[in-house]
Protein backbone atom coordinates (compact mmCIF):
# COMPACT_ATOMS: atom_id res chain seq x y z
CA UNK A 1 0.00 0.00 0.00
CA UNK A 2 2.72 2.41 1.04
CA UNK A 3 4.78 1.55 -2.00
CA UNK A 4 1.90 2.38 -4.32
CA UNK A 5 1.36 5.72 -2.63
CA UNK A 6 5.03 6.52 -2.98
CA UNK A 7 4.91 5.79 -6.67
CA UNK A 8 1.80 7.92 -7.10
CA UNK A 9 3.47 10.92 -5.45
CA UNK A 10 4.66 13.50 -7.97
CA UNK A 11 8.39 13.89 -8.42
CA UNK A 12 9.85 16.12 -5.65
CA UNK A 13 11.37 18.43 -8.27
CA UNK A 14 8.01 18.96 -9.91
CA UNK A 15 6.35 19.41 -6.54
CA UNK A 16 8.92 22.02 -5.59
CA UNK A 17 8.42 23.86 -8.87
CA UNK A 18 4.65 23.91 -8.40
CA UNK A 19 4.99 25.15 -4.83
CA UNK A 20 7.47 27.82 -5.91
CA UNK A 21 5.18 29.04 -8.67
CA UNK A 22 2.33 29.07 -6.17
CA UNK A 23 4.33 31.31 -3.84
CA UNK A 24 5.12 33.84 -6.57
CA UNK A 25 1.64 33.87 -8.14
CA UNK A 26 0.54 37.05 -6.32
CA UNK A 27 3.81 38.75 -7.32
CA UNK A 28 3.29 37.73 -10.93
CA UNK A 29 -0.28 38.95 -11.17
CA UNK A 30 0.08 42.19 -9.21
CA UNK A 31 3.28 43.31 -10.95
CA UNK A 32 2.01 42.14 -14.34
CA UNK A 33 -1.39 43.81 -14.12
CA UNK A 34 -0.39 47.01 -12.33
CA UNK A 35 3.11 47.74 -13.66
CA UNK A 36 4.24 45.72 -16.69
CA UNK A 37 1.04 45.84 -18.75
CA UNK A 38 0.44 49.54 -17.97
CA UNK A 39 4.02 50.28 -19.02
CA UNK A 40 3.53 48.49 -22.34
CA UNK A 41 0.22 50.30 -22.76
CA UNK A 42 1.94 53.64 -22.11
CA UNK A 43 4.61 52.96 -24.73
CA UNK A 44 1.97 51.78 -27.21
CA UNK A 45 -0.43 54.67 -26.64
CA UNK A 46 2.30 57.28 -26.91
CA UNK A 47 2.17 56.63 -30.68
CA UNK A 48 -1.58 57.25 -30.79
CA UNK A 49 -3.73 60.21 -29.95
CA UNK A 50 -5.72 59.19 -26.88
CA UNK A 51 -7.93 61.90 -25.45
CA UNK A 52 -11.04 61.02 -23.43
CA UNK A 53 -12.70 64.20 -24.67
CA UNK A 54 -12.38 63.15 -28.30
CA UNK A 55 -13.74 60.23 -30.25
CA UNK A 56 -11.31 57.74 -31.76
CA UNK A 57 -7.66 57.12 -31.11
CA UNK A 58 -5.84 57.72 -34.39
CA UNK A 59 -2.29 56.46 -34.92
CA UNK A 60 0.05 59.44 -35.04
CA UNK A 61 3.51 57.84 -35.04
CA UNK A 62 6.14 60.08 -33.49
CA UNK A 63 3.87 63.14 -33.62
CA UNK A 64 3.55 63.38 -29.82
CA UNK A 65 7.30 63.20 -29.45
CA UNK A 66 7.85 65.79 -32.18
CA UNK A 67 5.35 68.15 -30.53
CA UNK A 68 7.09 67.69 -27.19
CA UNK A 69 10.36 68.91 -28.66
CA UNK A 70 8.84 72.18 -29.85
CA UNK A 71 6.54 72.86 -26.86
CA UNK A 72 8.05 75.82 -24.94
CA UNK A 73 6.45 74.76 -21.63
CA UNK A 74 7.94 71.30 -21.96
CA UNK A 75 11.36 72.73 -22.81
CA UNK A 76 11.16 74.97 -19.75
CA UNK A 77 10.22 72.06 -17.52
CA UNK A 78 13.18 70.05 -18.86
CA UNK A 79 15.58 72.91 -18.12
CA UNK A 80 14.16 73.24 -14.61
CA UNK A 81 14.42 69.50 -14.03
CA UNK A 82 18.07 69.41 -15.10
CA UNK A 83 18.81 72.30 -12.73
CA UNK A 84 17.04 70.46 -9.89
CA UNK A 85 18.99 67.29 -10.67
CA UNK A 86 22.32 69.13 -10.68
CA UNK A 87 21.71 71.02 -7.42
CA UNK A 88 20.10 68.19 -5.45
CA UNK A 89 22.59 65.51 -6.53
CA UNK A 90 25.54 67.71 -5.55
CA UNK A 91 23.95 68.73 -2.22
CA UNK A 92 22.90 65.19 -1.32
CA UNK A 93 26.25 63.67 -2.22
CA UNK A 94 28.44 66.24 -0.46
CA UNK A 95 26.29 66.42 2.68
CA UNK A 96 25.56 62.69 2.65
CA UNK A 97 29.23 61.66 2.41
CA UNK A 98 30.08 64.22 5.11
CA UNK A 99 27.35 62.93 7.43
CA UNK A 100 28.42 59.31 6.82
CA UNK A 101 32.08 60.07 7.62
CA UNK A 102 30.96 61.87 10.77
CA UNK A 103 28.69 59.01 11.89
CA UNK A 104 31.47 56.53 11.23
CA UNK A 105 33.63 58.49 13.72
CA UNK A 106 31.04 59.02 16.46
CA UNK A 107 30.98 56.28 19.06
CA UNK A 108 28.77 57.74 21.75
CA UNK A 109 25.01 57.72 21.10
CA UNK A 110 25.41 56.71 17.48
CA UNK A 111 22.02 55.05 17.14
CA UNK A 112 20.27 58.22 18.34
CA UNK A 113 22.28 60.33 15.94
CA UNK A 114 21.33 57.92 13.15
CA UNK A 115 17.66 58.26 14.13
CA UNK A 116 17.91 62.06 13.97
CA UNK A 117 19.74 61.91 10.65
CA UNK A 118 17.22 59.59 9.03
CA UNK A 119 14.10 61.34 10.30
CA UNK A 120 13.61 63.78 7.37
CA UNK A 121 13.57 60.84 4.93
CA UNK A 122 10.77 59.18 6.92
CA UNK A 123 8.33 62.09 6.85
CA UNK A 124 5.71 62.69 4.16
CA UNK A 125 7.29 64.95 1.49
CA UNK A 126 4.13 67.04 1.46
CA UNK A 127 4.44 67.84 5.16
CA UNK A 128 8.13 68.68 4.68
CA UNK A 129 7.18 71.07 1.90
CA UNK A 130 4.54 72.73 4.11
CA UNK A 131 7.06 73.13 6.94
CA UNK A 132 9.61 74.73 4.59
CA UNK A 133 6.94 76.89 2.94
CA UNK A 134 6.44 78.53 6.34
CA UNK A 135 10.21 78.89 6.80
CA UNK A 136 10.42 80.61 3.39
CA UNK A 137 7.35 82.81 4.05
CA UNK A 138 8.14 86.32 2.72
CA UNK A 139 6.53 88.25 5.61
CA UNK A 140 6.94 86.10 8.72
CA UNK A 141 9.27 83.32 7.68
CA UNK A 142 12.21 82.39 9.89
CA UNK A 143 14.64 82.52 6.94
CA UNK A 144 14.01 86.23 6.41
CA UNK A 145 14.01 86.75 10.19
CA UNK A 146 17.40 85.13 10.73
CA UNK A 147 19.04 86.79 7.73
CA UNK A 148 17.67 90.18 8.83
CA UNK A 149 18.93 89.84 12.38
CA UNK A 150 22.34 88.77 11.09
CA UNK A 151 22.35 91.84 8.87
CA UNK A 152 22.80 89.80 5.69
CA UNK A 153 19.72 91.30 4.06
CA UNK A 154 18.19 94.73 4.65
CA UNK A 155 14.52 93.98 4.13
CA UNK A 156 12.28 90.93 3.81
CA UNK A 157 12.70 89.11 0.51
CA UNK A 158 9.97 87.44 -1.50
CA UNK A 159 12.09 84.39 -2.25
CA UNK A 160 10.02 82.92 -5.04
CA UNK A 161 10.13 86.10 -7.13
CA UNK A 162 13.53 85.15 -8.48
CA UNK A 163 13.55 82.00 -10.58
CA UNK A 164 16.97 80.68 -9.66
CA UNK A 165 16.43 81.34 -5.94
CA UNK A 166 13.11 79.49 -6.16
CA UNK A 167 14.74 76.50 -7.87
CA UNK A 168 17.50 76.47 -5.27
CA UNK A 169 15.11 76.69 -2.30
CA UNK A 170 12.95 73.84 -3.64
CA UNK A 171 16.12 71.81 -4.22
CA UNK A 172 17.08 72.33 -0.57
CA UNK A 173 13.74 70.91 0.58
CA UNK A 174 14.22 67.86 -1.67
CA UNK A 175 17.85 67.40 -0.61
CA UNK A 176 16.85 67.73 3.05
CA UNK A 177 14.58 64.73 2.59
CA UNK A 178 16.82 62.58 0.38
CA UNK A 179 20.26 63.19 1.92
CA UNK A 180 19.78 60.58 4.68
CA UNK A 181 19.47 57.83 2.08
CA UNK A 182 22.84 58.78 0.55
CA UNK A 183 24.37 58.96 4.04
CA UNK A 184 23.07 55.49 4.99
CA UNK A 185 24.32 53.91 1.75
CA UNK A 186 27.77 55.48 2.18
CA UNK A 187 27.85 54.55 5.87
CA UNK A 188 27.18 50.90 4.98
CA UNK A 189 30.08 51.05 2.50
CA UNK A 190 32.38 52.74 5.06
CA UNK A 191 31.68 50.08 7.68
CA UNK A 192 32.71 47.36 5.24
CA UNK A 193 36.24 48.80 4.85
CA UNK A 194 38.77 46.67 6.77
CA UNK A 195 40.45 48.71 9.54
CA UNK A 196 43.96 47.38 8.81
CA UNK A 197 43.99 49.19 5.46
CA UNK A 198 44.04 52.48 7.34
CA UNK A 199 46.79 51.27 9.62
CA UNK A 200 48.86 50.20 6.64
CA UNK A 201 48.32 53.61 5.02
CA UNK A 202 49.31 55.31 8.29
CA UNK A 203 52.55 53.33 8.38
CA UNK A 204 53.23 54.53 4.85
CA UNK A 205 52.93 58.06 6.20
CA UNK A 206 49.65 59.04 4.52
CA UNK A 207 47.79 62.05 5.93
CA UNK A 208 44.02 62.14 6.42
CA UNK A 209 43.33 63.68 2.99
CA UNK A 210 45.54 61.23 1.17
CA UNK A 211 43.99 58.38 3.11
CA UNK A 212 40.51 59.51 2.09
CA UNK A 213 41.51 59.72 -1.58
CA UNK A 214 43.54 56.54 -1.76
CA UNK A 215 41.74 54.22 0.66
CA UNK A 216 38.24 55.44 1.46
CA UNK A 217 37.10 56.79 -1.89
CA UNK A 218 37.96 53.74 -4.04
CA UNK A 219 36.38 51.40 -1.51
CA UNK A 220 33.10 53.30 -1.24
CA UNK A 221 32.82 53.84 -5.00
CA UNK A 222 30.25 51.05 -5.38
CA UNK A 223 28.04 52.63 -2.73
CA UNK A 224 28.65 56.04 -4.27
CA UNK A 225 27.41 54.82 -7.66
CA UNK A 226 24.22 53.47 -6.06
CA UNK A 227 23.71 56.68 -4.07
CA UNK A 228 24.28 58.89 -7.12
CA UNK A 229 21.88 56.95 -9.31
CA UNK A 230 19.12 56.87 -6.70
CA UNK A 231 19.56 60.63 -6.08
CA UNK A 232 19.29 61.23 -9.82
CA UNK A 233 16.22 59.07 -10.34
CA UNK A 234 14.44 60.72 -7.40
CA UNK A 235 15.39 64.22 -8.60
CA UNK A 236 14.06 63.47 -12.09
CA UNK A 237 10.78 62.43 -10.45
CA UNK A 238 10.59 65.54 -8.28
CA UNK A 239 6.95 66.48 -7.89
CA UNK A 240 5.64 66.93 -4.33
CA UNK A 241 7.97 69.68 -3.12
CA UNK A 242 7.70 71.83 -6.25
CA UNK A 243 3.93 71.34 -6.45
CA UNK A 244 3.29 72.34 -2.83
CA UNK A 245 5.74 75.24 -2.76
CA UNK A 246 4.89 76.84 -6.09
CA UNK A 247 2.04 74.90 -7.71
CA UNK A 248 1.90 74.93 -11.48
CA UNK A 249 4.20 77.98 -11.74
CA UNK A 250 6.23 77.71 -14.91
CA UNK A 251 9.41 78.98 -13.25
CA UNK A 252 9.64 75.94 -10.98
CA UNK A 253 7.66 73.39 -13.01
CA UNK A 254 9.26 69.95 -13.28
CA UNK A 255 8.79 67.39 -16.03
CA UNK A 256 6.60 65.31 -13.69
CA UNK A 257 4.37 68.32 -12.98
CA UNK A 258 4.14 68.88 -16.73
CA UNK A 259 3.11 65.22 -17.20
CA UNK A 260 0.45 65.58 -14.49
CA UNK A 261 -0.90 68.77 -16.04
CA UNK A 262 -0.92 67.42 -19.61
CA UNK A 263 -2.57 64.16 -18.66
CA UNK A 264 -4.88 64.90 -15.75
CA UNK A 265 -5.69 68.59 -16.18
CA UNK A 266 -5.65 69.04 -19.97
CA UNK A 267 -6.57 65.37 -20.55
CA UNK A 268 -4.02 64.94 -23.33
CA UNK A 269 -3.29 61.37 -22.27
CA UNK A 270 -0.92 60.36 -25.10
CA UNK A 271 1.05 63.55 -24.84
CA UNK A 272 1.60 63.01 -21.13
CA UNK A 273 2.54 59.39 -21.73
CA UNK A 274 5.15 60.25 -24.33
CA UNK A 275 6.67 62.81 -21.96
CA UNK A 276 6.74 60.34 -19.06
CA UNK A 277 8.55 57.80 -21.28
CA UNK A 278 11.19 60.41 -22.15
CA UNK A 279 11.60 61.28 -18.46
CA UNK A 280 12.11 57.63 -17.57
CA UNK A 281 14.70 57.18 -20.33
CA UNK A 282 16.55 60.34 -19.30
CA UNK A 283 16.84 59.30 -15.65
CA UNK A 284 17.95 55.77 -16.62
CA UNK A 285 20.59 57.06 -19.04
CA UNK A 286 22.04 59.53 -16.54
CA UNK A 287 22.24 56.90 -13.80
CA UNK A 288 23.80 54.36 -16.16
CA UNK A 289 26.47 56.92 -17.01
CA UNK A 290 27.47 57.28 -13.34
CA UNK A 291 27.57 53.58 -12.73
CA UNK A 292 29.76 52.91 -15.78
CA UNK A 293 32.02 55.89 -15.07
CA UNK A 294 32.62 54.98 -11.47
CA UNK A 295 33.20 51.32 -12.20
CA UNK A 296 35.67 52.16 -14.94
CA UNK A 297 37.61 54.72 -12.91
CA UNK A 298 37.89 52.80 -9.69
CA UNK A 299 38.56 49.27 -10.79
CA UNK A 300 41.20 48.33 -8.27
CA UNK A 301 44.58 49.76 -9.02
Amino acid sequence: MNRILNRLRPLPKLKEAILGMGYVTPVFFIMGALVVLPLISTIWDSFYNVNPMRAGTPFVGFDNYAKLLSDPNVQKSWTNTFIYVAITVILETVLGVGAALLLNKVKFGRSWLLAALILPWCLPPVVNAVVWMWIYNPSYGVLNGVLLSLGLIEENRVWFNDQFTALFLISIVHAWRMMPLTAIIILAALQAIPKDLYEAAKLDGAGPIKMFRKVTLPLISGGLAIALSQSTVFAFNLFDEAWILNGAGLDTRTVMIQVYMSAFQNLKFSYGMALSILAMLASLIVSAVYVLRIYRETRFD
Partner: protein
Amino acid sequence: MYMKNFKTVIGKTSLIFAVSLLLFWSLGPIYWSFVTSITPPNDLVSSELHLWPETVSFEHYGKLFGATSISQGNEVQSIWPQFSKAFANSLVTSIGATLLTVLIAAFGAYAFVRFTFPGRDILFYVVVATMAIPAYTVMIPLYRLMISLSLINTHTGVIFIYISAFLPLALWLMRSVYQAIPISLEEAAYLDGAGKTYTLMRIVLPLAAPGLIAAAILTFLNAWGQFMVPLVFSPTLATKPLTVLIPEFVTRNYIDYGLMNAAGIVAIAPPIILVVFLNKYLVSGLMAGSGK
Protein backbone atom coordinates in the same frame (compact mmCIF):
# COMPACT_ATOMS: atom_id res chain seq x y z
CA MET B 1 52.55 65.25 25.04
CA TYR B 2 51.08 68.71 25.33
CA MET B 3 50.67 68.87 21.55
CA LYS B 4 48.86 65.57 21.56
CA ASN B 5 46.39 66.73 24.19
CA PHE B 6 45.84 69.91 22.28
CA LYS B 7 45.13 67.92 19.15
CA THR B 8 42.56 65.68 20.79
CA VAL B 9 40.85 68.72 22.31
CA ILE B 10 40.62 70.30 18.85
CA GLY B 11 39.42 67.00 17.42
CA LYS B 12 36.76 66.57 20.11
CA THR B 13 35.54 70.14 19.74
CA SER B 14 35.23 69.96 15.97
CA LEU B 15 33.47 66.60 16.26
CA ILE B 16 30.93 68.06 18.69
CA PHE B 17 30.51 71.07 16.43
CA ALA B 18 29.90 68.86 13.40
CA VAL B 19 27.39 66.70 15.30
CA SER B 20 25.43 69.76 16.43
CA LEU B 21 25.43 71.10 12.89
CA LEU B 22 23.99 67.80 11.66
CA LEU B 23 21.34 67.80 14.40
CA PHE B 24 20.43 71.40 13.59
CA TRP B 25 20.05 70.57 9.87
CA SER B 26 17.96 67.43 10.47
CA LEU B 27 15.81 68.48 13.40
CA GLY B 28 15.73 72.29 13.05
CA PRO B 29 12.83 72.46 10.57
CA ILE B 30 10.80 69.91 12.56
CA TYR B 31 11.45 71.83 15.78
CA TRP B 32 10.39 75.07 14.10
CA SER B 33 7.19 73.47 12.87
CA PHE B 34 6.42 72.28 16.39
CA VAL B 35 7.12 75.73 17.87
CA THR B 36 4.86 77.31 15.24
CA SER B 37 2.07 74.88 16.07
CA ILE B 38 2.02 75.97 19.74
CA THR B 39 2.42 79.72 19.15
CA PRO B 40 -0.74 81.85 19.50
CA PRO B 41 -1.97 83.03 16.05
CA ASN B 42 -1.26 86.71 16.75
CA ASP B 43 2.36 86.05 17.73
CA LEU B 44 2.94 84.20 14.45
CA VAL B 45 2.59 87.45 12.55
CA SER B 46 4.87 89.50 14.80
CA SER B 47 8.24 90.50 13.48
CA GLU B 48 10.17 89.19 16.48
CA LEU B 49 11.65 85.70 16.42
CA HIS B 50 11.31 83.52 19.47
CA LEU B 51 12.99 80.16 19.77
CA TRP B 52 10.26 79.18 22.22
CA PRO B 53 6.84 80.90 22.18
CA GLU B 54 6.32 83.55 24.90
CA THR B 55 2.95 82.03 25.67
CA VAL B 56 2.21 78.46 24.73
CA SER B 57 -1.18 78.00 23.11
CA PHE B 58 -2.98 74.95 21.81
CA GLU B 59 -5.38 77.00 19.74
CA HIS B 60 -4.23 75.47 16.44
CA TYR B 61 -4.69 71.98 17.78
CA GLY B 62 -8.08 73.12 19.06
CA LYS B 63 -9.04 73.92 15.47
CA LEU B 64 -8.09 70.40 14.46
CA PHE B 65 -9.67 68.53 17.35
CA GLY B 66 -12.31 70.86 18.78
CA ALA B 67 -15.97 71.22 17.87
CA THR B 68 -15.84 74.89 16.83
CA SER B 69 -13.13 77.50 17.05
CA ILE B 70 -12.43 81.17 16.50
CA SER B 71 -10.53 82.24 13.41
CA GLN B 72 -9.97 85.91 12.56
CA GLY B 73 -12.75 86.87 14.94
CA ASN B 74 -15.35 84.56 13.42
CA GLU B 75 -16.58 81.30 14.80
CA VAL B 76 -15.80 78.56 12.30
CA GLN B 77 -16.82 74.97 12.03
CA SER B 78 -14.23 72.50 13.20
CA ILE B 79 -12.32 70.58 10.60
CA TRP B 80 -12.12 67.54 12.89
CA PRO B 81 -14.61 65.48 10.79
CA GLN B 82 -12.46 65.96 7.68
CA PHE B 83 -9.18 65.62 9.51
CA SER B 84 -10.11 62.46 11.38
CA LYS B 85 -11.49 60.87 8.20
CA ALA B 86 -8.29 61.66 6.30
CA PHE B 87 -6.18 60.33 9.16
CA ALA B 88 -8.21 57.12 9.16
CA ASN B 89 -7.85 56.87 5.36
CA SER B 90 -4.09 57.25 5.65
CA LEU B 91 -3.98 54.53 8.31
CA VAL B 92 -6.22 52.10 6.41
CA THR B 93 -4.36 52.36 3.10
CA SER B 94 -0.88 52.37 4.66
CA ILE B 95 -1.47 49.48 7.06
CA GLY B 96 -3.39 47.48 4.44
CA ALA B 97 -0.63 47.93 1.88
CA THR B 98 2.05 47.12 4.47
CA LEU B 99 0.50 43.86 5.67
CA LEU B 100 -0.23 42.58 2.17
CA THR B 101 3.17 43.64 0.77
CA VAL B 102 5.06 41.92 3.59
CA LEU B 103 2.93 38.76 3.30
CA ILE B 104 3.39 38.51 -0.48
CA ALA B 105 7.10 39.32 -0.23
CA ALA B 106 7.68 36.80 2.58
CA PHE B 107 6.46 33.91 0.42
CA GLY B 108 7.60 35.26 -2.95
CA ALA B 109 11.17 36.01 -1.89
CA TYR B 110 11.45 32.56 -0.27
CA ALA B 111 10.51 30.94 -3.57
CA PHE B 112 13.05 33.10 -5.40
CA VAL B 113 15.81 31.96 -3.01
CA ARG B 114 15.07 28.31 -2.23
CA PHE B 115 12.96 26.83 -5.05
CA THR B 116 13.76 26.22 -8.69
CA PHE B 117 10.97 26.69 -11.18
CA PRO B 118 10.78 27.84 -14.77
CA GLY B 119 10.96 31.61 -15.24
CA ARG B 120 12.23 32.24 -11.70
CA ASP B 121 15.17 34.48 -12.50
CA ILE B 122 13.52 36.45 -15.28
CA LEU B 123 10.50 37.19 -13.08
CA PHE B 124 12.74 38.36 -10.25
CA TYR B 125 14.81 40.66 -12.46
CA VAL B 126 11.77 42.14 -14.20
CA VAL B 127 10.17 42.88 -10.82
CA VAL B 128 13.33 44.52 -9.46
CA ALA B 129 13.82 46.51 -12.67
CA THR B 130 10.37 48.09 -12.26
CA MET B 131 11.80 50.06 -9.33
CA ALA B 132 13.34 52.38 -11.93
CA ILE B 133 9.97 53.23 -13.52
CA PRO B 134 8.57 56.58 -12.36
CA ALA B 135 5.01 56.38 -11.02
CA TYR B 136 3.68 58.70 -13.71
CA THR B 137 4.75 56.42 -16.54
CA VAL B 138 2.13 53.86 -15.54
CA MET B 139 -0.36 56.24 -13.96
CA ILE B 140 -2.54 56.90 -17.01
CA PRO B 141 -3.17 53.25 -17.99
CA LEU B 142 -3.67 52.49 -14.30
CA TYR B 143 -6.25 55.26 -14.14
CA ARG B 144 -8.20 53.70 -17.02
CA LEU B 145 -7.83 50.23 -15.49
CA MET B 146 -9.11 51.42 -12.12
CA ILE B 147 -12.08 53.14 -13.76
CA SER B 148 -13.00 49.99 -15.66
CA LEU B 149 -12.78 47.93 -12.44
CA SER B 150 -14.67 50.70 -10.56
CA LEU B 151 -11.82 50.86 -8.06
CA ILE B 152 -11.32 54.62 -8.36
CA ASN B 153 -11.73 56.31 -5.00
CA THR B 154 -11.71 53.04 -3.06
CA HIS B 155 -9.27 51.91 -0.40
CA THR B 156 -8.78 48.63 -2.26
CA GLY B 157 -7.65 50.38 -5.45
CA VAL B 158 -5.14 52.57 -3.63
CA ILE B 159 -3.84 49.64 -1.56
CA PHE B 160 -3.18 47.56 -4.67
CA ILE B 161 -1.36 50.41 -6.39
CA TYR B 162 0.82 50.83 -3.28
CA ILE B 163 1.56 47.09 -3.23
CA SER B 164 2.66 47.17 -6.86
CA ALA B 165 4.88 50.17 -6.12
CA PHE B 166 6.56 48.90 -2.93
CA LEU B 167 6.64 45.13 -3.49
CA PRO B 168 9.93 45.15 -5.48
CA LEU B 169 11.85 46.75 -2.60
CA ALA B 170 10.30 44.34 -0.07
CA LEU B 171 11.14 41.33 -2.28
CA TRP B 172 14.71 42.55 -2.76
CA LEU B 173 15.12 43.03 0.98
CA MET B 174 13.57 39.68 1.98
CA ARG B 175 15.66 37.87 -0.62
CA SER B 176 18.89 39.11 0.99
CA VAL B 177 17.49 38.17 4.43
CA TYR B 178 16.71 34.57 3.35
CA GLN B 179 20.07 34.23 1.62
CA ALA B 180 21.77 34.97 4.95
CA ILE B 181 19.92 32.15 6.78
CA PRO B 182 21.93 28.88 6.75
CA ILE B 183 20.14 26.23 4.67
CA SER B 184 21.17 23.47 7.10
CA LEU B 185 18.35 24.45 9.48
CA GLU B 186 15.76 23.88 6.80
CA GLU B 187 17.34 20.60 5.71
CA ALA B 188 17.17 19.35 9.28
CA ALA B 189 13.47 20.16 9.33
CA TYR B 190 12.84 18.30 6.03
CA LEU B 191 14.65 15.23 7.40
CA ASP B 192 12.28 15.30 10.35
CA GLY B 193 9.47 15.07 7.82
CA ALA B 194 8.29 18.69 7.88
CA GLY B 195 6.75 20.07 4.69
CA LYS B 196 8.22 23.05 2.87
CA THR B 197 5.45 25.46 3.81
CA TYR B 198 5.49 24.30 7.42
CA THR B 199 9.27 24.80 7.53
CA LEU B 200 8.96 28.31 6.12
CA MET B 201 6.26 29.32 8.59
CA ARG B 202 7.66 27.67 11.72
CA ILE B 203 11.43 27.82 11.26
CA VAL B 204 12.41 30.38 8.64
CA LEU B 205 9.96 33.24 9.27
CA PRO B 206 10.79 33.58 12.99
CA LEU B 207 14.47 33.82 12.05
CA ALA B 208 13.66 36.38 9.35
CA ALA B 209 11.58 38.53 11.74
CA PRO B 210 14.00 41.51 11.77
CA GLY B 211 13.91 41.57 7.97
CA LEU B 212 10.12 41.36 7.94
CA ILE B 213 9.93 44.28 10.38
CA ALA B 214 12.33 46.31 8.24
CA ALA B 215 10.30 45.60 5.09
CA ALA B 216 7.11 46.56 6.94
CA ILE B 217 8.56 49.86 8.19
CA LEU B 218 9.87 50.83 4.75
CA THR B 219 6.55 50.01 3.09
CA PHE B 220 4.54 51.83 5.74
CA LEU B 221 6.66 54.99 5.55
CA ASN B 222 6.51 55.03 1.74
CA ALA B 223 2.74 54.53 1.73
CA TRP B 224 2.14 57.07 4.51
CA GLY B 225 3.99 59.78 2.57
CA GLN B 226 2.42 59.14 -0.84
CA PHE B 227 1.01 62.21 -2.55
CA MET B 228 0.92 61.71 -6.34
CA VAL B 229 -1.04 58.45 -6.30
CA PRO B 230 -3.86 59.60 -4.00
CA LEU B 231 -3.97 62.98 -5.75
CA VAL B 232 -5.19 61.08 -8.82
CA PHE B 233 -6.89 58.03 -7.33
CA SER B 234 -8.49 59.46 -4.15
CA PRO B 235 -10.43 62.55 -5.25
CA THR B 236 -12.97 62.69 -2.39
CA LEU B 237 -12.92 62.45 1.37
CA ALA B 238 -14.09 58.83 1.12
CA THR B 239 -10.45 57.82 0.60
CA LYS B 240 -8.45 61.07 0.67
CA PRO B 241 -5.37 60.76 2.93
CA LEU B 242 -3.75 63.41 5.12
CA THR B 243 -1.08 64.20 2.53
CA VAL B 244 -3.75 65.37 0.10
CA LEU B 245 -5.94 67.08 2.72
CA ILE B 246 -3.26 69.21 4.41
CA PRO B 247 -2.26 71.24 1.30
CA GLU B 248 -5.96 72.03 0.80
CA PHE B 249 -5.87 74.16 3.97
CA VAL B 250 -4.25 76.76 1.72
CA THR B 251 -7.18 78.88 0.62
CA ARG B 252 -6.96 81.46 -2.07
CA ASN B 253 -6.34 84.53 0.05
CA TYR B 254 -5.32 83.20 3.44
CA ILE B 255 -2.92 80.50 4.55
CA ASP B 256 -3.38 79.40 8.15
CA TYR B 257 0.23 78.41 8.86
CA GLY B 258 -0.46 77.64 12.51
CA LEU B 259 -3.14 75.16 11.53
CA MET B 260 -1.02 73.63 8.76
CA ASN B 261 1.94 73.13 11.07
CA ALA B 262 -0.29 71.61 13.76
CA ALA B 263 -1.77 69.24 11.18
CA GLY B 264 1.75 68.49 9.92
CA ILE B 265 2.93 67.61 13.44
CA VAL B 266 0.01 65.19 13.84
CA ALA B 267 0.75 63.68 10.41
CA ILE B 268 4.43 63.11 11.21
CA ALA B 269 3.73 61.55 14.61
CA PRO B 270 3.40 57.94 13.31
CA PRO B 271 6.69 58.06 11.32
CA ILE B 272 8.49 59.68 14.27
CA ILE B 273 7.24 56.97 16.63
CA LEU B 274 8.46 54.30 14.20
CA VAL B 275 11.88 55.90 13.87
CA VAL B 276 12.32 56.37 17.61
CA PHE B 277 11.34 52.82 18.55
CA LEU B 278 12.33 50.75 15.50
CA ASN B 279 15.29 52.74 14.21
CA LYS B 280 17.59 49.68 14.34
CA TYR B 281 15.43 47.67 11.91
CA LEU B 282 14.90 50.65 9.63
CA VAL B 283 18.62 51.35 9.24
CA SER B 284 19.53 47.71 8.67
CA GLY B 285 16.71 47.44 6.16
CA LEU B 286 17.86 50.50 4.24
CA MET B 287 21.44 49.24 4.23
CA ALA B 288 20.40 45.81 2.94
CA GLY B 289 17.87 47.26 0.52
CA SER B 290 20.23 49.71 -1.10
CA GLY B 291 23.45 47.72 -1.16
CA LYS B 292 24.54 44.58 -2.98
